[in-house]
Every structure is written in structure tokens, then in C-alpha cells.
């Protein structure tokens, strides 16, 4: 084998080889996407539960969840995948396929990381928001879902996007327990044909394309949920949804305006204030001038 490597390295590079085997790559890619999405969805759900329990005031639950987070974050993922599949599944005779074991291992670890991200996001929402919601009579659950969570979601979008990219990359580790995802099928193809460079180059490019796609997706979400963007985004203002919304608001304004004719209008003393301010500034400037001239004399 070793003596063959230089020969292989000098072999003619053929792109066509990858195209010919595209079905193999596509099958692997499909499984990589499936594992990533399923594991990540489960991780987000579990991570939210972890975050909420971690913030509980209970003297039992809080340290338990802290331990959960710290244990699963501390074990190398590859070791954990092997342990779940070869260790747990076989020892306890769990009827578990390699894919299920892989998803379970990824979910447990990622939920620990995501739990911490979500917790920091929830805690980053100013406490005054909760107080304002309580002050109009909203309960704890309503306050969380209507006021805190939407704001926390905006905060955690970038780090959560990073975690999804990480999940796509880390899903390749389940190849060691025999899941025929992208890395596994590439590895098999390369070993069978000795076209290591073509195969692994293709694998690298496929992962790169996938993560780049997610990167732009996250960028879009960030923009979509950014508060400042609401001011400038023409896409939002000219979408059919936005046009309908504007029309609805106009109609509401007109109705209220008509219904409230004759009611006293709040007089806002803006112009007076400004005039006063100008006068005051002129006065100050005058005084300064006399002071200066006084000093010169």
C-alpha cells in the first residue's frame, strides 16, 4: 500500500470521476443533511428546556441541569458517539440503529451547548421588559412567550447559526459507527478506487458549499430580525404583506380620527420650548460676550 501511494499521487487528475460517482456523493449528502437537521432540531428543543430549567430557582433541578451541561460539554464528541453506540446501546441491549445512536449523541452534546447560548440570550433581555409586561397584568408564561423569547431569539440567532454549522461538520464523526453519510461514502469510494485526491476534494467542497449555504441563511435571518433593519429594508416595505399592513393601519387611523373629532387634542409644547431654548442660548451668548469684553477691558 505504501509503495503504491506515489504512483497514485502521480495519476492523472480526473473531474469526470466525481461526476460519474455523483449518486454516491448525493446519497451521503442526503444522510448528512438529514442527521444534521434532525439532531439540530432536537437540540434546539432540548436546549430550550435546559436553559429554562437551568434558570429555575429549585435547589434540586438547577444543579442537576448544571451537571448535565458540564458533563456533556466535557466529553470529546467522538468518544461520546462511540460510547453511546458501542457502549450503551450494546450493554443495555437497546434496539438502536447507528443513525439513531449518532443522532442521540449529537443531540445530547449540542443541547448542552445550545442551552447555555439560550440562557445567556434570555438573560440578556433587560429585566425592565419583564417588569413592563407584569405591570400591564401579563403573567409569567405570557411574558416569557410574548416579550422575552422573541427578543432573546434575535440575540441568539448568530451563535445558534454557528452551532448549526458546527453540527453539519460534527455529523461527519458518526461515520466511525458505520453511518453511510457523506464522509463514510467518500471514504469507501476512495479506498475502493484509490482516487483519494478527487474524492476528498469533492467531499471538502460539498461540506464547504453546505456550510456556506447555512452561513448566508443565518445572515438573512439576522437581517430579517434586526431591529435597525426595519428602518431601511425596502423588501419589507414593498412586500404584499407590508402593503396590506400599511393599508390596514391607514384605515384604522382614519376611523379613529373620524370617531374622535371634537375631543381635546394633546397640546405638545415643542415650538415654545424651542423658542425658549433659542432665547436662552442667545441670552447666554450675550452674557458670555459681555463677560469676555469685560475681561478685556
Amino acid at each position, binding site marked *: 500500500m505504501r509503495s503504491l501511494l506515489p504512483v497514485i499521487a502521480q495519476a492523472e487528475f480526473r473531474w469526470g470521476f466525481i461526476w460519474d460517482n455523483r449518486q454516491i456523493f448525493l446519497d451521503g449528502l442526503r444522510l448528512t443533511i438529514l442527521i444534521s437537521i434532525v439532531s439540530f432540531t432536537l437540540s434546539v428543543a432540548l436546549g430550550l428546556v435546559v436553559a429554562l430549567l437551568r434558570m429555575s430557582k429549585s435547589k434540586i433541578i438547577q444543579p442537576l441541569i448544571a451537571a448535565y451541561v458540564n458533563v456533556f460539554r466535557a466529553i470529546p464528541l467522538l468518544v461520546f458517539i462511540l460510547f453511546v453506540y458501542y457502549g450503551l446501546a450494546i450493554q443495555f441491549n437497546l434496539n438502536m440503529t447507528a443513525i439513531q445512536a449518532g443522532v442521540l449523541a449529537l443531540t445530547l452534546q449540542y443541547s448542552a451547548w445550545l442551552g447555555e447560548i439560550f440562557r445567556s440570550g434570555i438573560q440578556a433581555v433587560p429585566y425592565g421588559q419583564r417588569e413592563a409586561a407584569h405591570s*400591564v397584568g401579563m403573567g409569567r408564561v405570557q411574558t416569557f412567550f410574548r416579550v422575552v423569547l422573541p427578543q432573546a431569539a434575535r440575540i441568539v440567532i448568530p451563535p445558534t447559526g454557528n452551532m448549526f454549522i458546527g453540527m453539519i461538520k460534527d455529523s461527519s464523526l458518526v461515520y466511525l459507527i458505520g453511518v453511510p453519510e457523506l464522509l463514510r461514502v467518500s471514504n469507501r469510494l476512495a479506498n475502493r478506487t484509490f482516487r483519494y485526491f478527487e474524492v476528498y476534494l469533492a467531499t471538502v467542497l460539498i461540506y464547504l458549499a453546505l456550510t456556506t449555504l447555512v452561513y448566508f441563511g443565518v445572515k438573512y435571518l439576522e437581517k430579517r430580525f434586526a431591529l435597525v433593519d426595519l*428602518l431601511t429594508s425596502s423588501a419589507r416595505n414593498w412586500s404584499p404583506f407590508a402593503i396590506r399592513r400599511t393599508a390596514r*393601519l391607514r384605515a*384604522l*387611523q382614519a376611523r379613529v380620527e373620524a370617531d*374622535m373629532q371634537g375631543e381635546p387634542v394633546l397640546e405638545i409644547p*415643542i415650538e415654545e420650548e424651542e423658542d425658549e431654548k433659542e432665547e436662552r442660548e442667545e441670552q447666554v451668548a450675550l452674557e458670555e460676550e459681555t463677560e469676555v469684553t469685560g475681561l478685556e477691558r
Partner: protein
Amino acid sequence: MSVSPNNTSQPEQPAPVVRLRSIHKSFGSNHVLKGVDLTVDQGQHIVIFGPSGSGKSTLLRTTNLLERPESGSVWFDGKEYGPGLDGQKLPRGKPRVLREQIGMVFQQFNLFPHITVLENVSLALRRVKGISHSEADYKAATQLKRVGLLDKIGAYPIQLSGGQQQRVAIARSLVMEPKVMLFDEPTSALDPELVGEVLAAMRALAESGMTMVVVTHEMGFAREAGDLNIFMDEGMIVEQGGHEIYQDAQEPRTRAFIEAIL
């Protein structure tokens, strides 16, 4: 601490809306409120002033149960919300019920930044009172018209000036039709030129007969609207009275504070 009749401007016997009695509150070793009594009568405009750290904001927040007192009674609408006084057994109320009927305006506005001005005002109508979407929107828009912001209903809070944000916050509380409105230094976070519009909204509200408790340093507003003016220092009410308190206060501490801020 009840108010002597010659201090109130109302001729008939006013009905109390909220009554706080011997409220104690500590943050750690810091004893913030040391047995404070406060009775808020129907239609009364109470102004609370005093140096920072005197407990005036905490007193206001206790009225709304955003702070839970360690001891003392918070009475509202026939029900007891605080720990209660010794030997007194009143039916207990749920904090949510009290908060729904007592509005609060914060120093930092605390508008919800992720939803529009209209949604800020209509959210609690829909979620707490269970009013339909379209009716809640109509009520909210009506309330926003009253504070002069009908043209801003589609805007987001960050698109408004501080004064406009505070007026939205006032509308958000008023739309729930509260029995009492609490103001916690509503103009302290505003640029000087924006204070006027918030005070104008508060004056209009006072003229409409709303019961109000205002923690403020705006002495102009206090003189004009304050039926009962309370000076607090070191967790206690030092002195209270009508408008005359600003001219000739009895307590030297009150006089010193008024002189310092005028």
C-alpha cells in the same frame, strides 16, 4: 398616615383606592423602607420627592407589587396583597389582578422593542383582557390619539424620540383603564427639550381626574398638580402636605432638599 382634611382640595370625603401600611422592605442589609404608610384616594394626585436612595421608587414599585414588602399591608379594592398586618385577616388577592388595574410608567420607558407602537399598546388588551384583535387595535389607536401619536402606530419604538416613547408607555398603561397610574421618574431619562411633551400628557391625565402617584424631580409639575406632596428620606416619610410645602416646609431636611433642587 391619613391626610388631614384641610390638606385635600376635595370637599367630600374621598374614597381610598390603595392603602399601604407600615411597609418594610430591605435589599440585603440595606433597609430601604422603614414602615411607610400611604393612602391614595380616588382622584388624588400624589407627588413623592426626595434624594436618591430615599426609597421613593421602591415605595412606588411596592404599590404595584414589583417589589414584595417583607412586612406590612398592601390593600387594594377590598383585598390584601402584602404580608398583612398582625391580627388582620383580609381576603387575599392575586398580584396579576392588582397590576392589571394599577398602571405604571417607568423611567426607562421599557417599551417592547420587537413589536410596533400599536402592538405595544394592544398586547395586554388581547392577552390579558382577551379582547379581539381588531377591537384591541381600535382601542389602542384611540389611546395613542389621545397622547398625540396616532400617526406613529406603525412605527417601532427605536424609531421614536424619548418623549414619544414615554407617551407610548403612558398609552400602554392607560389602555388597560387602570384605577391608579404610577409614574416612576417619567422624565428623568429624557433630553431637556423632550420633557415638556411628557409633562403635557401627564397634566392632561391629571385634569381628566385620573388618580396618580408620581415620583419626580419636576417641581413645576409637582406644584401645579400635586394635591399631596410627600418628602421622603432614608426610607421614611419626613413630611407631607399641600402646595405650601414648597414655600415653607416645616422640616429642615425638606427645606434643604427643596432649596438644593430649585
